[in-house]
């Protein structure tokens, strides 16, 4: 395992939420997904700031949808994880799993 993941916990949560949502991943569902699975309330501005940073790093890509009246004529911005982003998620998973393994206190949900 050569590469080292630089993903923060919030970055990882966002990438995983994008993978779970598939084609329906835009601001509102992403924040809802994170809120429902982690209990963490996410400000949409913070979410977009992180997504912009991840996009600059090439871990996610975005496309604009159609504008709707419900959104005051503004388009949705859909995000998806790129191949590079997927590699980073896998690396992070590997790192966490190896750290997890062999910790007696965490075996069998004891801790």
């Amino acid at each position: 395992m050569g590469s080292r993941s630089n993903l923060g916990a919030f970055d990882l949560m966002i990438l995983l939420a994008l993978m779970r949502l598939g084609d329906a991943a835009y601001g509102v569902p992403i924040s809802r997904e994170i809120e429902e699975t982690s209990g963490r309330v996410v400000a949409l501005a913070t979410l977009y700031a992180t997504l912009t940073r991840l996009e600059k790093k090439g871990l996610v890509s975005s496309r604009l949808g159609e504008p709707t009246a419900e959104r005051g004529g503004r388009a949705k911005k859909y995000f998806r994880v790129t191949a590079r982003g997927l590699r980073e998620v896998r690396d992070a998973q590997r790192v966490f799993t190896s750290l997890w393994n062999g910790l007696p206190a965490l075996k069998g949900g004891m801790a």
Partner: protein
Amino acid sequence: MTRMRPPALATWLLRHAARGNDALVGDLLEEHRRRRSDAWYWRQVLAAFVVSLSREALLVAGIVALFLIGSRVPVPGAEADTLTLLATRAAGRPFGPLTLLAGGQLLWGVTVFGLGIMPYVSAALVVQTLALIWQFLNRNASRRRPLPVMAVTWYVAILLCAVQAVGVALFLERTSAINENLRIVANPGWMFRVTTLLTLTAGTTGLMLVSDQISRRRMGNGMLLVFMAGLVAGLSRTLGQADPFALLTSAVLQMAVVAVVSRGYRRVITLAGPG
């Protein structure tokens, strides 16, 4: 179920905080209409405001650092210590703080950023007037030619820089000749004038580039941010030498003027195309 409109003040604030991020504005409107409260909407807007503010604060801090570094690079041939002495004296005089900030940082040192971003601001004002005249002249033309706004602004700004820089060089030479006890210019003459012209013009051109990059990348109002950074850098050096109230009043007034000019300039660019 369609809910009422979100609070108007919050939406106004959001439009400014989330400049360039229509998706965020749309998301908040959508969520508010569907199920969220006004309190939730306000919290989200304030978060957007803080996020945008921290980004702009970082930018200003970066440009302030640039100004502070530049203020230690004097124009070759000018005696930096004497210039600082003159600046300190100017700060204590009536209207001193005003002039101290108005011409950029000139009075606290003829340095590489001596003219600040002001020539660009003045050029933007000139171009706004030119755009009106251009529109008037082309009113009957069958095919309207757009004014190359950005190119013209750059030419005018560089011309203003050159004129001001030569003026500064001549002023320093004359001051040096009148006050024999003050050694400001080591070797007056054409070489000094040309060096001053090149240094001051290059410094302001660098600031104009930074300003344009900020605006082009939609990170904020570049002209205003660079001007603000110049003010902050200037204030940090002049506090304690001048009346703080006069400094602050002058800073707020100038920022208001630059804000109006830069907004008008951006509107002209949008209408005419960047050119």
